[in-house]
């Protein structure tokens, strides 16, 4: 994350650049003593010399003076016009978007009328009517450009106005003008500044264009358009004459765009994202892990370690090991930021570009019984594995389904991607899948669009699509979190039946923060905290008798664990104090110790390993757990 000072640093270069381009023309008298309109026909088209650095034009006027004084005119006309257009357009847009109703109608129709005219024609018309000159130009350009500002402001303001924080301001009783100016306007400043730069640049070119046509600035007053116009006739003998004003135009437009781009990034409070190119991360891991022997095991994550791509940053995932068996549901439980979703994305080979696998292995038994290490596969093979051997369903089925395509098309595409099949066969297969996931009337509903279905039905479609190639491993990332409880219960039940039905036994990796759901569906549970698995074992055992203080605290802090408590009687829930640490601020020793109610001084020195229980069924990463080897604490404390 960048500090505020860095933002300002990023603005220095573009600001200097832009300031120079504005100041230099207006400092013309200091730079050259020549008069831009003084004619000296004797020296027409003279080459540059020490006194006239850029030479003289077709009337023998000093080009340096003309390009500088011309810049004054061109820049003033462009900026004044753009600023007026921006103010009027923004005002119209804000009023229309915030108050809606009649004001929306008036402001948007007014802009529409202007937008109906081809811009150059409108400009020509006005100039012909009112005669050329700078004032006319400013007026024409402002009228020409305010509708684009109005449009952009309107659509952006409409988006911002519907956000909760604007509603909060209204609920606070903040007067409308203050909401519009203090809350809505700053939040649309980014797109507006981009539009400003585009418009200013366009205004400069239109000004030049009109002057070139003889409709803008009146000769002999200098302007860049005038210069181009004059130099055009002598282009062949004297190319410099046309290059100078053109270079001035290009530099100015570049400076404005550069400045506005940086400004937009700076205005974004979260800072510029920098280069966010998604590159496929390549692991540096060695294949030293044992290969899967047990035919029942579908996938093994062994000592997975993920780091961000920046050098020297701590691991986002420190140590995750999991064995995923056929016909078994393993739940990965944890709070946001614990690393549960990243672990599953690693299995899919879909890690974000900024994260790389630096240790551990991810082994998968494919349907062909071949065992592969997912970290070492090329992109083509990974694509083949995704959807075919491993499938995934997400929290919000609406965002994972494409709203503009029918369900049938999306399912057929998913099926034919991995199976050579005719469209009609694929369609029949899709209908069979939908029936399997409990959709009544599948033949008809397959041709509906995602928004015509309820959330529960969409999630069924997603599950059906995920199962289309009979994967061995299904990863479900919070699949019921966005659903109502009654629908959630149905989806859980569906996943349970599917797991048992699937021919060769489906392994389900279920990621959730909801322990109640996990208790319903999971055979085994792995609890994650701050990039580590802290407790792992059979679901019933772990949830009934948690050995890690974090697992215990999680269960305890759920209101459903305390049916006797009620806040009306002044009862409080046993909450965990503090918040989970960021990867960069993990405490020494046990990562949970500063929130742990039973932490000992030794917990600060030792980062506990996952200690297995005597029967090997469960494991826990805590020095104070019954599984911790006797003496580990004494031993270490003595050593310390």
């Amino acid at each position, binding site marked *: 994350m960048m500090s505020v000072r860095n933002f300002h640093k990023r603005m220095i270069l573009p600001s200097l650049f832009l300031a120079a381009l504005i100041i230099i023309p207006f400092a013309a008298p200091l730079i050259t003593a020549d008069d831009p309109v003084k004619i000296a026909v004797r020296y027409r088209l003279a080459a540059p010399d020490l006194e006239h650095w850029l030479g003289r034009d077709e009337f023998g006027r000093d080009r340096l003076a003309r390009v500088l004084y011309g810049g004054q005119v061109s820049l003033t006309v462009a900026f004044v016009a753009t600023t007026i257009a921006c103010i009027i357009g923004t005002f119209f847009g804000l009023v229309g978007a915030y108050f809606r109703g009649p004001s929306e109608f008036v402001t948007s129709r007014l802009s529409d009328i202007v937008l109906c005219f081809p811009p150059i024609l409108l400009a020509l018309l006005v100039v012909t009517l009112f005669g050329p000159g700078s004032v006319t130009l400013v007026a024409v350009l402002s009228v020409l450009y305010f509708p684009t500002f109005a449009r952009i402001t309107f659509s952006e303001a409409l988006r911002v106005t519907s956000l909760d924080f604007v509603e909060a301001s209204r609920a606070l009783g903040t007067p409308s003008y203050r909401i519009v100016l203090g809350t809505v306007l700053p939040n649309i400043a980014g797109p507006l500044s981009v539009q400003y730069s585009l418009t200013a640049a366009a205004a400069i070119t239109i000004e030049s264009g009109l002057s070139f046509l003889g409709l803008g600035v009146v000769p002999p007053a200098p302007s860049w358009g005038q210069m181009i116009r004059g130099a055009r006739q002598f282009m062949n003998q004297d190319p410099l004459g046309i290059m100078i004003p053109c270079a001035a135009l290009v530099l100015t437009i570049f400076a404005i765009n550069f400045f506005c781009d940086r400004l937009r990034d700076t205005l974004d409070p979260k800072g510029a994202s920098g280069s966010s190119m998604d590159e496929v991360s390549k692991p540096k891991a060695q294949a030293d892990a044992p290969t899967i022997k047990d035919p029942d095991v579908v996938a093994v994550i062994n000592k997975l370690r993920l780091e961000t791509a920046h050098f020297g940053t701590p691991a986002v995932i420190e140590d995750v090991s999991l064995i995923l068996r056929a016909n078994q549901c393993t739940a990965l439980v944890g709070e946001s930021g614990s690393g549960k979703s990243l672990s599953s994305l690693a299995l899919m080979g879909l890690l974000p570009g900024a994260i790389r696998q630096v240790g551990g292995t991810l082994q998968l038994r494919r349907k062909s019984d071949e065992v592969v290490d997912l970290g070492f596969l090329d992109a083509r093979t990974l694509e083949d594995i995704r959807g075919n051997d491993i499938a995934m369903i997400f929290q919000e089925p609406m965002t994972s389904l494409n709203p503009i395509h029918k369900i049938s098309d999306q399912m057929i595409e998913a099926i034919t991607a991995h199976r050579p099949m005719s469209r009609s066969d694929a369609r029949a297969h899709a209908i069979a899948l939908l029936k399997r996931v409990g959709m009544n009337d599948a033949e008809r509903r397959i041709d509906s669009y995602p928004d015509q279905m309820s959330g529960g039905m969409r999630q069924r479609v997603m599950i059906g699509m995920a199962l289309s190639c009979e994967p061995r491993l299904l990863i479900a990332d919070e699949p019921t979190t966005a659903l*109502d409880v009654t629908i959630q219960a149905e989806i859980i039940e569906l996943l349970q039946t599917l797991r048992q039905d699937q021919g060769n036994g489906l392994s389900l990796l279920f990621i959730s923060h909801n322990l109640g759901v996990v208790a319903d569906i999971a055979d085994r549970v792995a609890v994650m905290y701050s990039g580590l698995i802290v407790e792992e074992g059979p679901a019933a055992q772990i949830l009934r008798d948690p050995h890690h203080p974090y697992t215990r605290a999680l269960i305890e802090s759920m209101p459903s664990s305390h049916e006797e408590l009620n806040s009306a009687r002044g009862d409080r829930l046993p909450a965990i104090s503090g918040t989970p640490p960021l990867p960069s601020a993990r405490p020494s020793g046990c990562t949970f110790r500063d929130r742990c109610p039973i932490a000992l001084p030794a917990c600060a020195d030792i980062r506990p390993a996952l200690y297995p229980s005597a029967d090997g069924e469960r494991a826990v990463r805590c020095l104070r757990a019954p599984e911790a080897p006797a003496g580990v604490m004494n031993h270490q404390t003595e050593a310390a």
Partner: protein
Amino acid sequence: MTAAPLLDVRNLKKSYSIGRSGLFSKRSLKVLHDVSFSVAPGEVLGLVGESGSGKSTIGRAILRLIDSQSDVMRFDGQDLNSISPVRMRSLRKQMQIIFQDPYASLDPRKTIRAVLSEALDAHGLHKGAARVPRLIELVTLVGLDPSFLDRRPHEFSGGQRQRIGIARALAVEPSFIVCDEAVSALDVSIQAQVLNLLADLRAKTGVSLLFISHDLSVVRYISDRVMVLYLGRVMEVGPADQVHFSPKHPYTAALVSAEPSLHRENRRIRLTGEIPSPLALPSGCIFRSRCPYAQPACAETVPPLQTVGDQHQSACLRTDIL
């Protein structure tokens, strides 16, 4: 309840017009059907229901953030249906809202100081030298460090943002707060902290809450009374523990039984079919299309809310089954 209610709502209705079906008939989508309730001073009324039940609409209608129709809507003795915009703005000091999404509810461009100052400025509170102590008091009240005042929302975690949202609502010392899914987006451990915070505030300031949530256990824990909504109609209303542990309406019973739990053996009551479209609601009892106990009579009349216990009412004809 003998004390005069702080908020009294009778027959609240809300519908959206959604274009035309024929040439002349305008179609409208009714999202609230004659919802009546009251909130006593210091009381927490829980509002539960699935998506589309209209629970968030009720919260926004009371705060006049959206238009609605009602026979009576009185807050603190004032008629909200006939109140002038100017009076309403000053009344907003007394009624506040906490939103679900801690990421969307704070302006990313404002510091915490600016967020809280906006609230105070809107009602001209704690001006000048009294401002800073008040701001510090507010952030401390919600368990944040005063050094956070000059930070912007993106520097905070979800739980911390939610606390800022609560501080903003509390800044104007309201007597009534709508908590619209205020803890739903939070992790379990943070959710417990925020619930405790709300419980403490309630004990300390006597604020009334309309606590809207789809999580029945959370609502049961925090509320005095609970109202269950289904497709814009009240199904059941009563004391929190009674509604949760001995529901009288089949819909409440199904909801409670569908809730995943670590501690109960699940005997889920299966609901058949899908939630009907609000455009084609069943006649009579709105729930009958999914009700396991429905009878022909349920299709004929809309069951009224009948008293089934102390302060406990249920809108079901079949009082014999639960």
